């Protein structure tokens, strides 16, 4: 038995978006809440098909929103020694930062890098998004990263 069925994402989004926005505005203010809102639901959507049942979805999405808010606040502060080790581990560059950093890469490489390291997508998801295959996606991301590394170290 599977417990409560997972609702179609549209219904889940319609049900929880206002509460998510309310939480994000409280923590981040009106302006920063907008980006965080999009990031929250993109993260939720990305994890959605791996859910095993439809229970506690409200708590689940509010947890994602809180994590996005924490990441947003952390990013706003200059990185310094006050970051704990575990916080540093999680501080994956957010997709918009990565988008700025990768500006100037060839388009395919840039998309692959942002999708892989900004959104944490798997290579087969990236291949789908780019209309290519898994090997090409992996290749594009790794070429992109090498190019960035050269650019940063030179």
């Amino acid at each position, binding site marked *: 038995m599977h417990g409560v069925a997972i609702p179609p994402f549209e219904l889940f989004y319609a049900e929880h978006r206002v509460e998510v926005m309310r939480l994000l505005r409280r923590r981040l203010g009106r302006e920063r809440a907008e980006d965080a809102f999009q990031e929250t639901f*993109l993260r939720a959507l990305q994890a959605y098909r791996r859910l095993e049942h439809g229970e506690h979805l409200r708590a689940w999405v509010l947890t994602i929103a809180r994590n996005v808010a924490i990441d947003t606040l952390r990013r706003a502060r200059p990185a310094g020694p006050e970051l704990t080790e575990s916080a540093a581990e999680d501080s994956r560059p957010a997709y918009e930062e990565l988008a700025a950093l990768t500006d100037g890469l060839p388009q395919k490489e840039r998309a692959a890098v942002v999708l892989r390291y900004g959104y944490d997508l798997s290579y087969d998801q990236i291949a789908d998004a780019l209309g290519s295959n898994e090997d090409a996606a992996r290749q594009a991301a790794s070429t992109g990263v090498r190019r960035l590394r050269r650019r940063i170290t030179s």
Partner: protein
Amino acid sequence: MTISPALDRGFREAAVALGLVDVGFDLVESPVGDLFVAVSERGLASISYDPEPEAQLERLARIAGPCILRSPRSVDNARRELDQYFAGRRHTFDLTLDLRGLPPFTVSVLHELALVPYGETTTYGTLASRVGRPRAARAVGTVMNRNRIPIVLPCHRVVGAGGDLVGYAGGLERKTALLTLEGAL
């Protein structure tokens, strides 16, 4: 508190662009009423005359997965071809179809159905014969009645042996309107 339309649209577009959506859907206006149109990564999955999407969404989730989101861009191709069809400028559709989950008999009937030309009609019995089951006219009728992709899979072109329109899941008025548009009546 409301979510601004621009933010809502931005999220939906990003979700589709990132390939996170199993099925995108939207309503498409047409002379036979608003159509619920859904497109999966495999192709056109559903057209429904019932513009209230909730029941459709549950059904689609069972077929194609739960990541279903309203997104106008996902149905752009289907919308364009339907617009052209209703304007009388398109007689065949070039859309890939997602027929996942259908039994083999249904799929073979639908393949034959897709071959019935614009502006012509055929009968349930003829379709039954074409799939090698000449006595299965009634079963063919059931397949027509449950057709997930009406208009594009032209079940409106299937009529009774005596030429009566017989029935249509979207209502006989719509069947008449489609056949009139095609010049078949």
